[in-house]
């Protein structure tokens, strides 16, 4: 049964007509052409499909689109697009924190949710906990962790606290 579903994606209202049990990830990629979020495990284990719903990081592969009706969804595209990149994205480039790039959009979304909540430069352990649900098969994580630290420093500098 198809149904019309309204929600907000990256601050723009959107309306799609589909089966409400289609996953949010499939809707983003197939119906809205927002292909940053990736499907890898499809079971909540790897985080490559991470998006923000009402500013909390969740796995879009396990959310049915009918469940985000009237909610606010942010994808990696909504965190920033060239030339208006977020500090996190800039830092990923500067630190070389991406290789094949499959995990990167999900990690950037998780990092965004995490840094939204902290007003200091987080410790390595805190970053590891925040990224516990995001797997990367390429980088070995150290550059990702460094990039998130660098982004936190940039955020603080911008706020004038450092």
């Amino acid at each position: 049964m198809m149904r019309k579903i309204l929600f907000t994606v990256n601050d723009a209202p959107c309306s799609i007509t589909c089966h409400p049990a289609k996953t949010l990830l499939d809707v983003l990629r197939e119906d809205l052409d927002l292909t940053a979020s990736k499907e890898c495990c499809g079971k909540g284990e790897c985080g490559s499909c991470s998006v923000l719903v009402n500013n909390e990081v969740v796995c879009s592969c396990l959310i049915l689109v009918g469940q985000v009706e009237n909610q606010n969804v942010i994808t990696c595209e909504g965190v920033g697009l060239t030339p208006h990149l977020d500090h996190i994205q800039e830092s990923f480039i500067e630190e070389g924190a991406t290789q094949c790039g499959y995990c990167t959009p999900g990690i950037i979304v998780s990092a965004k949710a995490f840094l939204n909540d902290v007003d200091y430069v987080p410790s390595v352990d805190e970053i590891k906990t925040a990224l516990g649900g995001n797997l990367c098969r390429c980088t070995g994580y150290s550059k990702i962790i460094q990039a998130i630290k660098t982004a936190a420093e940039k955020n603080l500098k911008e706020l004038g606290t450092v």
Partner: protein
Amino acid sequence: MIAGGTDAAVRMKEGKWRPEVWINIKGIHELRYISEKDGAIHIGPLTTHTDIIRHTLLQKKADVLVEAAREVGAIQMQNMGTIGGNIGTASPAGDTIPALYVLGAVFELRSITSVRLVPIEEFFIGPGKTILKKKEMITNIIIPPQKANEIGIFQKLGPRKAQSISIVNVAISLLMGKDRKCLGGKIAFGAVAPTIIRAKKCEALLTQQPLTDEIIQNIGKIAWKEVMPITDGRATAAYRRDMASSLLERGLYRLLRRWENDGEK
């Protein structure tokens, strides 16, 4: 019924569960609450693990539940997964369930025409099986608040730190007296039997003498005999027994260290 979907959507994708109609309860805000009234803590089934972790009332008066919620999956699962869903899945390895056992939780089950209160020990009947009737749902989780001298801990062993299903877990709640004297306590193990189990023989030893290192080691040995694990893809029965014993010992040591350092809450 689908709440956070972290179990339901996985089962749908694996082809294990394809209901004709999904009832999405995630949007029922009235069922997402944490409050204290008439001397009891009430938790709505749609409360997420993240809600539990952040709540100061629970940190103080249901510490063991907060610790258990912190061990569920990783941030994404904590944001999506609900306590009602964790109970509804009725996995023998569900992390919040042993915590709810030692806190003595009671579930409110409602249908359109009926309401009943069921103590947690009567609710689960096997892996994935509960006494919930077809048209009923969990509408409230009621727990007696811990007293100032009641302290709890949750210990979990998984294949890795985040995002892993428990190989064995244990929740402990102790009512402490002077020094290392324990006035009463409950211990519940997960993933060592078809449902969560209370370790009543271990519990009986808690109050007999002050909890010296020797007594704690003894209680660990009793646990080895009291659990009834199976071998499956995640671990062998023998390993689970050893780990149940060690986790309980470690949990008791850590709890007593906290008690000696911090005292009453």
